[in-house]
C-alpha cells in the first residue's frame, strides 16, 4: 500500500517538492529466501500427480510476484535472507533498522543495516525457534522499519510446512515413494498435524489406524494406473493410496505409504514390512518365522507333503475349521452372506523401531510386541488337500493360536 502511495506521489505538484524530499525513501522488498529451510521441495507448480519429479521449486521462495512454499524442521530457528532496495522517492539514509513479525511469535530484527546503492541483502534469524509441532503454517511476516522508512509491501506471505526433522530422501529416484514434492509434503503434514503427538510410535499407530483392513483384490474405484491393491506403479508408488483410503491396499502397500510419510516428515525410527508365518516342520507350528518383504518378497509359508498319494499343503487359516471337512475356495460367500475360512501364507505387518522399542502393527489386526503374537491373527495352522473348484479339505490341525 505504501508502494502505491509512493507511486501516486511520484508526480507531485511543484509546491510540494521540498516536503517530499524530506520524506524517508521507501524500503522496497525484492526477495526473501529461507536459508534454514530444507530446500528439498520439488514440483511446486507442475502437475506431476504423486510422482517424484526433480523439478525445483522457484527460489527465492518469496518475491512480490511469487509466494512459494518451504519446509522447515520444528524447534529450529528460522533464518531469513531478505533483499531490499531503497527507492529514490525520498530521503535515503545510510543505515536502516528492520523488523519482521511472523506467526507464533516469530520475530526478526536487525538494526543499523548499511544500505547499498542498489540492492541490500540482510540476514535475519528468528528470535525464537519454530514451535515444536508438525503443521502447515501461513508464514505471514509483517515488515517494518523502526528507522522510519515505509516498507513495501508491508507483508510477505509463504506457506511453511513444519516437519519433525529433515526429510529423508536418500532413496529418491529408485524408491517410488521417496523424494519430497509439494503434494506429498502437503498430504503428509495434513495427516500428521491432526494427531497432535510427536511420539513416533503414536504417529505410526494413528497412521495405521487409517487402514483398519487390508485388501487383496483390485478396486474398481482406484484408477488402473495406480495398480491397486499392490500399488506397484510409476505414479508415486503407494502415495496415491492416500486418495483412496477406503479402498485400502495390500499390507506391504500400506507400510510403504506410512514409511513414506514418516520419511517425508523426518520422523525418527525405522519402518519395514515384515512377513510372519509358521511352518508345521518347525517347532510344531509354534515358532514364528519372519522375513522382511523388501529383502525377500516371495517369503512365506511354502510347505507341502504327500500323504497316501495325496498332496497336502500347509496353510494358516483365519477362522475355525474341522478336520475332514471340505471348504470352498478362500472367502467364498455363502447364501447367508457369511464368508468361508481363508487360507494364507503369511500375515504382513509393519515393524517399527524407535528408541530401542519395536512394535508390530498389523493391518487392522492390532499391535503386537512379539512375532509369535502376530500368529494370533490366525485361528491355526493346518494341512489341507485340494478339493473341487479351488476348495480345500482340512486334513490335519497342526497348531491353534487361540
Amino acid at each position: 500500500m505504501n508502494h502505491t502511495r509512493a507511486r501516486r506521489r511520484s508526480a507531485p505538484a511543484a509546491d510540494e517538492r521540498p516536503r517530499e524530499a524530506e520524506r524517508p525513501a521507501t524500503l522496497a522488498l525484492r526477495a526473501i529466501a529461507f536459508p534454514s529451510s530444507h530446500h528439498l521441495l520439488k514440483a511446486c507448480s507442475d502437475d506431476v500427480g504423486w510422482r517424484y519429479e526433480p523439478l525445483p521449486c522457484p527460489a527465492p521462495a518469496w518475491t512480490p510476484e511469487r509466494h512459494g512454499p518451504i519446509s522447515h524442521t520444528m524447534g529450529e530457528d528460522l533464518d531469513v535472507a531478505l533483499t531490499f532496495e531503497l527507492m529514490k522517492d525520498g530521503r535515503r539514509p545510510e543505515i536502516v533498522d528492520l523488523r519482521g513479525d511472523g506467526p507464533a511469535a516469530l520475530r526478526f530484527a536487525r538494526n543499523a543495516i548499511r544500505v547499498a546503492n542498489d540492492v541490500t541483502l540482510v540476514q535475519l534469524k528468528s528470535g525464537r525457534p519454530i514451535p515444536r509441532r508438525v503443521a502447515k503454517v501461513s508464514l505471514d511476516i509483517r515488515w517494518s522499519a523502526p528507522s522510519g522508512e515505509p516498507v513495501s509491501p508491508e507483508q510477505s506471505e509463504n506457506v511453511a510446512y513444519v516437519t519433525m526433522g529433515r526429510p529423508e530422501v536418500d532413496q529418491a529416484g529408485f524408491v517410488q515413494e521417496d523424494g519430497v514434492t509439494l503434494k506429498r509434503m502437503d498430504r503428509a503434514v495434513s495427516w500428521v498435524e491432526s494427531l497432535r503427538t510427536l511420539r513416533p510410535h503414536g504417529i505410526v499407530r494413528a497412521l495405521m489406524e487409517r487402514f483398519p483392513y487390508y485388501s487383496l483384490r483390485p478396486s474398481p474405484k482406484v484408477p488402473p494406473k495406480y495398480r491397486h491393491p499392490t500399488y506397484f506403479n510409476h505414479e508415486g508408488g503407494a502415495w496415491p493410496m492416500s486418495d483412496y483410503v477406503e479402498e485400502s491396499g495390500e499390507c506391504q502397500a500400506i507400510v510403504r505409504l506410512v514409511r513414506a510419510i514418516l520419511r517425508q516428515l523426518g520422523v525418527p525410527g525405522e519402518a519395514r514390512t515384515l512377513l510372519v508365518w509358521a511352518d508345521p516342520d518347525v517347532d510344531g507350528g509354534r515358532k514364528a518365522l519372519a522375513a522382511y518383504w523388501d529383502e525377500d518378497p516371495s517369503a512365506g509359508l511354502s510347505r507341502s507333503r504327500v500323504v497316501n498319494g495325496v498332496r497336502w499343503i500347509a496353510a494358516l487359516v483365519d477362522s475355525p475349521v474341522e478336520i475332514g471337512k471340505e471348504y470352498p475356495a478362500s472367502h467364498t460367500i455363502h447364501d447367508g452372506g457369511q464368508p468361508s475360512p481363508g487360507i494364507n501364507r503369511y500375515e504382513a505387518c509393519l515393524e517399527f523401531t524407535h528408541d530401542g522399542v519395536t512394535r508390530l502393527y498389523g493391518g487392522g489386526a492390532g499391535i503386537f510386541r512379539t512375532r509369535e503374537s502376530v500368529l494370533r491373527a490366525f485361528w491355526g495352522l493346518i494341512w489341507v488337500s485340494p478339493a473341487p473348484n479351488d476348495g480345500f479339505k482340512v486334513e490335519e490341525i497342526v497348531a491353534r493360536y487361540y
Partner: protein
Amino acid sequence: MLDSKHALRREAGFRIDAWLAAVDDVAPSEWKPIADIAELPAQARAESRYWCDQIFCPGANPYEAPCVTRAVRCGAGSAPDLLRHDYAAEGLLLHVIEGRNFLLVHVDRKSLDVPALPEGERAAAVSRVAQTIFRAPLSFCHCAPPDDGALFCTDACADPLLAASWAERAEGGVRRGELWFACYKRVSQLVGFWNPAQWFCDEGCGVRRAMRRAAPRRRSKR
C-alpha cells in the same frame, strides 16, 4: 508311492485340464458379446484390467490394443465365470480367456502354426511369442520339439497354490495345432485361489469386502 514332484505335476495337470475343459465346454452360443467393457461388473472389470496389466506387455494387452471384441460367459453352479478378448497384437491373432484364477492365451493358428514349422524352429517360435506378449521373461522347458498335444511349463517345481507371483510358473502347450499359454492369477498372501464361480457376482464382492473390514477387528479383540 508318489513323490512330491510327481504329485505336484499331476495336480497341476488336473487343474490345467479342468481350466481348458471349462473353456472348451462353452458352446459358441453361450458367449454373450459385450460392446463395452463397462458392461462387465465393476469388480470383475477391475480385476481383469489389473491382471492383464500385470501379465501382458503393453503392446499385447487387450486393454491397450485397438479393435478388441469381447464376450462373457456367466457360469451357472460351479462353472466358472469367463471373459473373452479377441484381438490382434504384435502381428498375432490372440484369443484371451480369463477366469477368476487364470488367464488363458490362445495364439490363433492363422498367425502361428507351430506344428507346421520345422522341428528345430518350434521351441524358438514359442519362446519368441512368449517374449513378445508377456511382461515377465518366461522361459519354457521343452523335453522335445513342441508338437500337437505338447505340454510345457516354466518351472515344474513351482507350486501354483503357493507361488508368490504369477511369473513364478506359467504353462503352455499345443492343442489342435494351436499354441496356448496359461497364467495363474496368484495372490501372494493366499494359499490357492478365489472361488471361480463368484467372479461376476457383485453381491458376493460387496459382502466379501465387508468381511475383510470385519475380520481384523475380530482378531484384534482376542
